[in-house]
């Protein structure tokens, strides 16, 4: 294990009107370079909070997080986030949205033509070569999410952070984009952390699935190794014994051992 991403005793406490709210505690996780890890759990279990900690968008109340040997202090382009609601800037074209990121990371180091090439290539990678100069409001939700992924990938991040990035899409579009993401991640060998509540998505894409207990004071319940060979194929896996078993394991964790309390 080369401990590319390292989370040690991370703890997150929010100050609320009703006093302290412990969202996360005792989180310990090591992630290898090139590993695809998903975090799954019921809503409110703090999985997005955990992702935000790695992104550096929030600071932990206790413990420490490291990325590539350095302590995480604040957000940075080495940990690119694909946001839940795509977060494209509506006044910039798809190309300009990606270019903004490329320019930030590679600007000053490479000539302009190179930067443009990078942005174009990133959009082509997600299958949007034809819509480069469209504005975000002219394209569908699935396409927007692709631009979001292209923007993140264009920065060549050390870690790709995906925050329920397909949550707002319909099932068919989501399946299609999952396949696409599977292809891209396999070909690039990216290290990725994905927050999801979709069991199939987690099993299909991940090398390991981190299953969270319910909040408050949520922590890692179990970690499931997904030793399915890559490249993976959705249709072939649908009836694969291992796949069905793994899927069942996740479901059992979520609905037997850590069933969501009815209050929420």
């Amino acid at each position, binding site marked *: 294990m080369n401990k590319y991403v390292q989370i040690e005793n991370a703890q997150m406490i929010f100050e609320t009107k009703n006093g302290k709210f412990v969202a996360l505690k005792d989180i310990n996780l090591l992630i290898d370079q090139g590993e695809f890890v998903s975090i799954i759990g019921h809503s409110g279990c703090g999985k997005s909070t955990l992702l935000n900690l790695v*992104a550096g*968008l929030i600071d932990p109340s206790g413990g420490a997080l490291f990325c590539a040997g350095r302590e995480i202090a*604040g*957000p*940075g*382009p080495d*940990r*690119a*986030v694909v*946001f839940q*609601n795509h*977060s494209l*800037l*509506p*006044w*910039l074209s798809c190309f300009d949205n990606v270019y*903004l*990121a490329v320019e*930030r990371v590679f600007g000053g180091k490479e000539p302009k033509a190179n930067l443009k090439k990078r942005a174009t290539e990133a959009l082509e990678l997600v299958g949007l070569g034809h819509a480069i100069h469209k504005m975000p*409001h002219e394209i569908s939700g699935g396409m927007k999410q692709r631009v979001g992924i292209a923007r993140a990938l264009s*920065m060549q991040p050390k870690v790709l952070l995906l925050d329920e990035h397909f949550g707002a899409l319909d099932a068919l579009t989501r399946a299609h984009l999952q396949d696409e993401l599977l292809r891209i991640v396999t070909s690039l060998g990216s290290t990725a952390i994905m927050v999801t509540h979709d069991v199939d998505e987690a099993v299909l894409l991940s090398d390991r699935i981190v299953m969270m207990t319910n909040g408050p004071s949520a922590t890692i319940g179990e970690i499931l190794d997904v030793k399915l060979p890559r490249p993976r194929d959705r249709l072939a896996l649908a009836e694969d014994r291992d796949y069905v078993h793994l899927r069942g394991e996740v479901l059992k964790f979520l609905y037997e051992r850590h069933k969501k309390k009815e209050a929420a």
Partner: protein
Amino acid sequence: MSVVSIKKNISGDEIPMPASSVKEQPMKQPQEMATTKTASEKATVQRIKAVTEFFVRRVMPSVLGVVLFLVIWALLAKQSGELPGPDKTWASAVELFSDPFYDNGPNDKGIGWNILSSLERVGIGFGLAALIGIPLGFVIGRFAFFSGMASPIISLLRPVSPLAWLPIGLLVLKEAQPAAIWVIFISSIWPMIINTAVGVTKVPQDYMNVARVLNLSEWKIFTRILFPAVLPYMMTGVRLSIGVAWLVIVAAEMLTGGMGIGFWVWDEWNNLNVEHIIIAIFIVGIVGLLLEQGLLLLAKRFEY
């Protein structure tokens, strides 16, 4: 079987056909011709219907309102005997606008000069206010420290009546002309500061998170995220400001004198030319409306 009845059968529509058009139909292929003719006529009828509906729903109420206003005005004028009615005012306006740009020395110039002079004052005062107010709004919105610094002053000064600033202007600037501009400036700056600042705080957190993840420089955050996101709010502020500026100009000019629509009103009052005062009221209203509509049009271009 007549052509008319074929039409009815095909289209299933009850459009009455004018007799003349029926006669003009060549009888070779009556069925085919009838179909196309009906379709185009159907479209025409629909268009007429749409236009009529537009008039009934949109234009009629406005026309009715204006007519009612004129009637009440005419009745009041007749009652009082001193207030000129719409007819007299109209005649006077026609005369006035037949030569809007004459120049008989400093105290007797055409109405066009007076309007332009007022617009110039508003333009300078409002322009300076925008130049200072908008950047100030950005700073106040972006940095909580400056917001804390500025908000008590803004809350205190904003409700002050615009004309209360005039003596200060006269004292400091010594002259009437810059003092009037000062009044426009100080009264039109607040909506721009406040709306811009509010706009900055309303920028979606998602966009700011993008900025944080990308580690954008403050300049890039401003040009790529803050400015475009705040633009609609800013335009609202600008629109409110120009409204205030135009509102204040008449009063300011009445007090400072010189040239301009406000001074002209006062001058005509001294001449007891009431028709001209009423005309001035309409001019102020119409110019204000045009300014507002122009800015609305401009603001529409910045919506996403």
